[in-house]
């Protein structure tokens, strides 16, 4: 055996290409695929005969499309409901063909099929011509980033294989695609039913010199390697499995673009935390070398920083993504209910999951005419719209034009993916929805006859929102409650407000990061209680600058006083008081009270 050596996997590895077939309903997508499978000899033995027999039994004329219609109800309806995958292979490589439905109701299924593909065959019926979904599918392909599109002008037999019929569609649809910045790789005159120009050249179209469908499919090029682009590793999870003495803390995810190696300085966004790659981990291989685009990897860090799933790990020397809470995007909406303002949705971008709201509909595209409609307030099902979106907390993203993988997102409504989109521009400088809402609230604020000054004289201190934060969990809460008790003994109006008391899910509140709606309820409640002159005290397990910023805005015009226990968790913000970690002590209580006194927030002992 020694003479043979190890056979590298790539020597025997065959390339795989995903191709999606799209087009208007009944224009012949399934027939094109059925032909491709049958004529390239890819069908299982007896399959063709089985389907022919079934047609005979049911007194229906045989169609190649039936080969794909594996599900019974689909045959009953005569349309492709879902994206069926079928496989075929040529001498050159393996293919996965996605048969995407052309019926408008199943547009979301077409999106599913097309998003997996590196190339598309767009089928247009030569007799019926360009229809609404011919255009809509063209648009969705361009938005999904499918760059290689071949247009199949099908049913040429019905047009007597006339060159003019083919060229009329080629010219009109070519012009349409150019407006979407898509340049089709070919237009092919085909009769899938008769097998013309599918795998063999048809004598009926002697005037046509381009490729057959099979030749075109073989000529599609694989997706370019993304290893040369800036490094982006969306952090899917952080693992610390302790069984068998495993002490590794592993940051795991799939590298979207670029490469990175042990020793590289990295920055995590949106938090801005920095560290250095210690090792790349791979089960069964020990510490590995560089990690690169397209691989699901795990790395350890030399300096332990607290990284959360959803951040993007970047190489410090690369161009970095943007960090913002507002961006302009092109959105395709598939939800049964329209996308409306003042409703929270869930945005998934890379590994990040964050609440998002529709801030503004800039315009809506009329897919069939490619003209835009302004002044709309919501995004209807099957609309393609340019929108401003605002997230509840900052997210790291790239513009889609710069990096596709980290420049696109989906939106979840309740339990369903209802929309997808690509990011056009960072709109972080605009006024936020939160800012506007708080301004509206303050303008309409209703007061009683007792003024702030009267309360301060009575209580001998102003109202204040005091936030304790730190990784210590129970220790931090203990300290906060002892400060509450201490202030109360000194006749202050102190009140401890547990985050759990404003949490919708009672079991969940506590040590983990506050959810966005908990933060909002907390801030709103603090605004009222500080207005009533109370020293409102709370603890938050794990906060970042933007959480504090949200609380500050919500609590306006009153202020927030921050006590950091066991280190400053913020990147830019400086807490008013820092105390060391550990069980709550009299010294720590004194340090906090001293901090409050020095700012004249609570009266001195001597008074």
């Amino acid at each position, binding site marked *: 055996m020694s003479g043979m050596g190890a*056979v590298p*996997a*790539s020597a*025997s*590895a*065959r390339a795989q290409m995903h191709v999606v077939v799209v087009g208007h309903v009944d224009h012949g997508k399934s027939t094109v695929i059925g032909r491709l499978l049958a004529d390239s000899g890819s*069908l299982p033995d007896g399959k063709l005969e*089985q389907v022919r027999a079934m047609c005979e039994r049911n007194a229906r004329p045989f169609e190649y499309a039936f080969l794909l219609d*594996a*599900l*019974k*109800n689909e045959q009953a309806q005569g349309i492709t409901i*879902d*994206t*069926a*995958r079928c*496989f075929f*292979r040529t001498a050159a490589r*393996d293919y*996965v063909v996605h048969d995407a439905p052309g019926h408008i109701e199943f547009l*979301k*299924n077409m*999106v*599913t099929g097309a*998003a*997996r593909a590196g190339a598309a065959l767009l089928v247009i019926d030569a007799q019926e011509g360009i229809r609404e979904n011919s255009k809509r599918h063209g648009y969705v392909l361009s938005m*999904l980033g499918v760059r290689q599109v071949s247009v199949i002008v099908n049913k040429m037999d019905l047009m007597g294989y006339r060159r003019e019929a083919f060229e009329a569609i080629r010219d009109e649809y070519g012009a349409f695609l150019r407006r979407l910045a898509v340049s089709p790789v070919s237009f092919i005159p085909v009769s899938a039913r008769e097998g013309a120009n599918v795998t063999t050249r048809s004598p009926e179209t002697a005037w046509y010199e381009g490729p057959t469908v099979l030749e075109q499919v073989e000529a599609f090029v694989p997706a370019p*390697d993304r290893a040369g682009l800036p490094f982006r590793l969306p952090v*899917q999870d952080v*693992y610390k*499995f302790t069984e068998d003495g*495993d002490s590794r803390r*592993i940051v795991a*995810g*799939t590298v979207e673009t670029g490469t990175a*190696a042990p020793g590289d300085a990295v920055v995590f966004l949106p938090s801005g935390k920095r560290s250095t790659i210690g090792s790349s981990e*791979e*089960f*069964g*291989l020990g510490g*590995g*070398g560089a990690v*690169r*685009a*397209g*691989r*699901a990897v*795990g790395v350890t860090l030399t300096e332990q920083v607290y990284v959360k*799933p959803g951040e993007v790990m970047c190489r410090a020397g690369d161009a970095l993504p943007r960090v913002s809470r507002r961006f302009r995007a092109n959105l395709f909406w598939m939800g049964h209910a329209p996308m409306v303002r003042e409703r929270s949705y869930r945005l*998934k971008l890379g590994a990040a999951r964050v609440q998002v709201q529709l801030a503004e509909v800039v315009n809506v595209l009329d897919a069939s005419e490619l003209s835009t409609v302004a002044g709309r307030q919501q995004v209807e099902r099957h609309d393609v719209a340019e929108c401003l979106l605002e997230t509840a907390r900052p997210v790291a993203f790239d513009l889609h034009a710069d990096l596709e*993988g980290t420049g*696109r*997102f*989906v939106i*979840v409504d*309740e*339990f*369903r*993916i209802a929309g*997808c989109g690509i990011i056009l521009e960072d709109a972080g400088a605009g006024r936020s929805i939160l800012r506007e809402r708080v301004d509206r609230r303050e303008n309409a604020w209703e007061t009683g006859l007792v003024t702030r000054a009267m309360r301060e004289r009575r209580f001998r201190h102003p109202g204040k929102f005091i936030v304790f934060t730190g990784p210590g969990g129970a220790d931090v809460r203990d300290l906060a409650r002892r400060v509450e008790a201490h202030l109360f003994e000194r006749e202050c109006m102190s009140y401890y407000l547990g985050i759990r008391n404003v949490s919708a899910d009672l079991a969940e509140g506590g040590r983990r990061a506050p959810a966005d709606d908990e933060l909002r309820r907390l801030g709103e409640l603090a605004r009222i209680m500080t207005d009533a002159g109370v020293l409102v005290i709370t603890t938050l397990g794990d906060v970042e600058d933007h959480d504090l910023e949200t609380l500050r805005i919500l609590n306006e015009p009153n202020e927030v006083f921050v006590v950091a226990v066991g280190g400053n968790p913020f990147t830019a913000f400086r807490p008013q008081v820092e105390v060391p970690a550990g069980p709550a002590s009299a010294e720590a209580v004194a340090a906090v009270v001293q901090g409050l006194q020095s700012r004249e927030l609570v009266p001195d002992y001597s008074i």
Partner: protein
Amino acid sequence: MADPAPVPSGPVDHLDALEARSVGLLREAYREFRSLCMLWSIGKDSTVMLMLARKAFFGHVPFPLVHIDTSFKIPEMIAYRDRLAREWKLDMVVGANREALEARRTFPDGALDRIACCRTLKSEALKHTVSGDWPRFRLDVATGEWKPDERREPFTGVIVGARADEEGSRSKERYFSPREVSSEWDVDDQPPELWGQYATEFAPGTHVRIHPLLDWTELNIWEYIEREAVPVTALYFDRGDGTRYRSLGCHPCTKPVASTARSVREVVAELRTGKFARVAERAGRAQDVDDGGGLETLRRGGYM
């Protein structure tokens, strides 16, 4: 000795790409589902999936493996299951339709056809094992004993090794596929799935099936078994009588194929010749034929 795996920093070939997607899916399932399990049929596909889980979680398998025992499995499969479970320290959970087995409501003993038998011993048993309302048993890896499972929490995420190229209905599956309260699959209204984002949200009372192997072909599975030295049962190889199993199930309904492939390498070579390219992989599974070749009736009702 197995060939060493390729250096991870090299260019991405087709097996690497399949592996990366599957690992990403497994990690996504682990991130999003608190109560997660993986179905392990002991066949080649779900054993590759188990290997992928060990890769995804760096040598650990952080969720239980569920096996539905029909009691008709070929005995070597059960011996192989228990050996691997102890060797890899797997958290093994086994469930069965004990009532049907005790009453012999099975094929061919009882008055049941193949489809009804599958529904009874697999779909029904799976549904009630996943929901936790039937007894299930957990393996003590230290002693090898099976003990009644005290923590019968319902699993809300179930990882299944179905492949799209196996047969028609599976070609329409999503990577993350919601199942209704009744375990039914609403194939007409599936969520969209794109850009590596999946339907991980689910309504109370429903569960989600996760399919990390959807894009793998039979040949890919064997190529990976070869590359990663994945242990598989010897039933997949010719042991002297000129036959081997391509797909493993219950013995009354599973027939071997004519083949002289005696090792993983020979199976890979055999598949590459295209010998079976025109014969369905599950052609030896009689219930598929009885279901009109599509498995659709069974799968809508919760079959894997």
